[in-house]
């Protein structure tokens, strides 16, 4: 049991009558880096969001750190503390400075005092290489800088797991590189990472495992090498042919 | 300082100068001078009379959409004097609040104001208005709860009193209480219903207004028997029609319309017998009044039989009074001062001759 930090068994999810997840069995070990691929609408985002309960699953079980995700509000709070999430659209709080964006949750959820939280925030901003932006507002930053702030904000809670939902797809090419660099460093430090991304370079270099979704199911699970050079499933081959144009 | 104020006021109303440009204001009095009020009214085809819609017995909007009441009947009488009849085509009642009635007069919105308005010197001057003969002699009274133990004004030390704002009532109250050295708290309201509602709700110990109003408004209370009207009369409240300065012919028409109803009662002419009396009467006073003899009506610019018309349509003073306030109504206000001079009252018409 304790071998896995995330365990999903038969997770199913409906939006109204539409079934977005059809029974996902999927486990992640501590420190693993997993990249999730798949065509648009295949349920990647839905799945990653059920893990920190931004979406409620209606069947199956999800355990994070051994705690089950169910209607118990305390469990949800407990699990969310351990999971950081980075969104495609950054979702920074536009009315707060970068510093306040990062320290808000540590101060009010982790109950750190302000100097501690700010010291931690500065450390993280240095790690994502934008310490000089601490007092700006998100609207004053470029997209790449905003996404790095979002990563720092998630890391400030010192989570054990980081979820990334297409973190670079709203960015310009040069900025993509900035963000990927941060993610790569993060992966190398041993963080458990679950990332939906179409950056094949990232998948090839740092992923321990690649998972391919379609129609709400896991179609293929493979090592990066095998996945790209020797995919097992026809659907995967079709997908790769379109991506690697 | 009084004359000075008056001068400023009357100039202003006559010259009609406001924030608008000066030149446009100048011709206004001239234009008014060329056309008499009577001509204006005739040309318009109807009389516009400022009235009340909220005072039971005096001016009320009835269920059929018409206005009725003692004051409204005088509006009618004036319309009859001019047009020979009073209906929708010859008379329009403009319901006014206490505080916009002077403006309506000054801006010629209305031709005449018959809205339980007390005749005072300052109104006479500062409203740029004149008052016709008093149609109803009222006096301010005080109503209290029977169980309050208040029997006279002197018992009201420290009491709170509901009173309507913008009225002479408010000022009389202050004068009378100061005179007697009584401390009290006035609670003022913008209109009659809210004043009465506050009294009903127990917000004040006393409720003051003209006695006629007290008598009628007492009926509006949930339990009229629990209240009493004190004997004291705190003021003189002569109520009568008012009209703007500057047109004496118009003033005469209004005045003699009122006197017509007084005289008719004095001579025993009623709506029922007016036509017979016109044919048979021998008293030259009556004959002149009814226009059978002489040219009195023409002198006013009206039909010679204007007074006969008024009495036929509206009745004499007694009929008007009884119809609205008399013993058969809910109010049953005693005639008191509003009796003919011959009966010891104050109603006195100059002779029709």
């Amino acid at each position, binding site marked *: 049991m304790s071998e896995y930090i995330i365990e999903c068994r038969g997770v*199913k999810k*409906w939006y*109204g*009558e*539409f*079934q977005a997840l*059809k029974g996902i*069995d999927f486990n992640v070990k501590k420190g693993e880096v997993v990249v999730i691929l798949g065509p648009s609408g295949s349920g990647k985002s839905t799945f990653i969001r059920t893990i920190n309960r931004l979406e409620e699953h*209606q*069947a199956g079980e999800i355990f994070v750190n051994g705690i089950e995700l169910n209607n118990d509000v305390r469990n949800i709070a407990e699990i969310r503390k351990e999971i950081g999430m980075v969104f495609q659209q950054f979702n920074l709080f536009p009315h707060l400075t970068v510093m306040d964006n990062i320290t808000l949750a540590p101060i009010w959820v982790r109950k750190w005092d302000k100097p501690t939280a700010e010291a931690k925030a500065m450390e993280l901003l240095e790690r994502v290489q934008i310490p000089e932006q601490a007092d700006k507002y998100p609207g004053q930053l470029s997209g790449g800088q905003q996404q790095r702030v979002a990563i720092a904000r998630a890391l400030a809670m010192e989570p054990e797991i980081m979820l990334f939902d297409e973190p670079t797809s709203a960015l310009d090419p040069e900025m993509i590189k900035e963000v990927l660099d941060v993610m790569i460093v993060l992966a190398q430090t041993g963080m458990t990472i679950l990332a939906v991304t179409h950056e094949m370079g990232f998948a090839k270099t740092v992923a321990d495992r690649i998972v391919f979704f379609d*129609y709400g*199911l*896991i*179609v*293929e699970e493979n090592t990066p090498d095998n996945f790209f050079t020797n995919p*097992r499933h026809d*659907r995967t081959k079709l997908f790769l042919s379109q991506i690697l144009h | 300082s009084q004359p000075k104020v008056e001068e400023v006021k009357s100039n202003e109303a006559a010259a*009609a*100068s*406001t*924030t*608008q440009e000066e030149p*446009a*204001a100048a011709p*206004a009095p001239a*234009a008014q001078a060329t*056309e008499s009020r009577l001509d*204006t009214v005739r040309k318009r085809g109807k009389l516009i009379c400022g009235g009340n*819609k*909220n005072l*039971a*017995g005096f001016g*009320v*909007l*009835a*269920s*059929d*959409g018409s*206005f009725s009441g003692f004051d409204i009947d005088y509006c009618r009488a004036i319309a009859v004097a001019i047009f020979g009849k009073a209906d*929708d085509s010859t008379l*329009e009642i*403009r*319901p006014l*609040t206490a505080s*916009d009635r002077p*403006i*309506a007069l000054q*801006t*010629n*919105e209305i031709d005449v104001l018959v809205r339980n308005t007390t005749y005072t010197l300052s109104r006479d001057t500062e409203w740029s208005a004149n008052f016709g003969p008093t149609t109803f002699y009222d006096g301010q009274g005080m109503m209290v709860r029977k169980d309050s133990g208040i029997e006279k004004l002197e018992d009201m030390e420290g009491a709170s009193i509901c009173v309507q704002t913008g009225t002479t009532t408010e000022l009389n109250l202050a004068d009378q209480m100061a005179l007697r050295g009584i401390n009290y708290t006035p609670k003022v309201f913008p*209109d009659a*219903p809210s004043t009465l*509602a506050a009294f009903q709700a127990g917000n004040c110990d006393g409720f003051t207004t003209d006695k006629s109003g007290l008598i*009628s*408004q007492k*009926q*509006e*209370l*949930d339990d009229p028997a629990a209240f009493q009207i004190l004997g004291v009369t705190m003021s003189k409240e002569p109520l009568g029609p008012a009209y703007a300065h500057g047109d004496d012919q118009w003033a005469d028409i209004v005045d003699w319309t009122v006197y017509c109803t007084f005289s008719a009662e004095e001579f025993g002419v009623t709506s029922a017998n007016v036509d017979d009396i016109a044919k048979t009467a021998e008293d030259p006073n009556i004959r002149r009044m009814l226009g059978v003899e002489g040219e009195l009506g023409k002198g006013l610019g009206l039909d010679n039989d204007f007074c006969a018309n008024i009495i036929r349509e509206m009745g004499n003073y007694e009929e008007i009074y009884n119809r609205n306030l008399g013993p058969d109504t*809910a109010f049953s206000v005693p005639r008191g001062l509003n009796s003919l001079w011959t009966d010891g009252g104050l109603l006195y018409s100059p002779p029709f001759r």
Partner: protein
Amino acid sequence: MTTATDINTAYEAPPRTEVGVLGWLKHHLFGSWFDTILTILSLGLLYVVLVPSMRWAVTKANWRAITTNILILIHGPYPQTQNYRVFIAIGLLVVMGSVSLFIYRGENVRGRRTMTIIWAVSPFFIWYLLAGFKGSSFLPLIEYSKWGGLLLSFILAIFGILASFPIGVLLALGRQSDMPIIKWMSTVYIEVVRGVPFITVLFMAQVMLPLILPPDVRVAGMFRAMVATALFSAAYLAENVRGGLQAIPRGQYEAADALGLSTFQQMYFIIMPQALRTVIPPIVGQFIGLFKDTSLVAIVGLLDFLNVSQSILSQAGFLGAQKEVYLFAALVYFVFSFAMSSASIRLEKQLGVGQR
């Protein structure tokens, strides 16, 4: 682990955690102890308030004050011999309203266009039906001073809404304009009018207008009130519309520019439909306010619904009927305000404001 060899594109049906009305009740009203307490408390509150009120309404209240006066409440001093005209107008509107519900839901383009034309023409038709013609014996002239009650309140509110709308939109655009004169004038107008109580405006119109106009030109009080209402409301509307304009992304202007649309076309087709849609709630709130503020026109001597109601209290038979009359008045205002509010929420939903 799981390696599907064939992709399953079939769907399972979603689990039914709640079935039917009872399930819904259980889930929503008694889902937790907090819900349950709330439900019981509010039922209790309803009981405490409603039961005595109903008892009073049925046994004690003297509703004759209302029933006897229902005609003047509806149309004020409008002559009762002619008041079938008012009821024809009401009937017409009801029929048009019901027909519209069908027509505008359907797909019949010709029908919708016809209906729109009917709506556009109907105000004039109804106006002449109500006002009549001088000297006509079939539809004799009814003077404006005779229009009152709900009829008057509606005319004021509807005219106020219809007329303030274009003025308000123009003012909002003016305030955003690049031309400083237009910008200043719009701003001054908006700020001055918003800054002054409606009563004061009405009162000034009452005092000033007769002084400006030649003495024999008389503007019926109703028109004065209509104009004052519209001009007053326009200033508030302008600010609401401005709020909506601020929510339009720059890209919409740029796309319209790039297509070569003129400024007017851009506003009419692109910007305004979106701006107005986002500010439906405040605009409707304002229109409800306008409807209720029509009662202030008493100051120019008009007998609107609320004033007719109040005057009932001075009728000899109903001197003590304050509670009945005020309750009834509140109810009538509520019914119409609520209808507006509901219609607006339907509109909001149709236009998809709430979704994102």
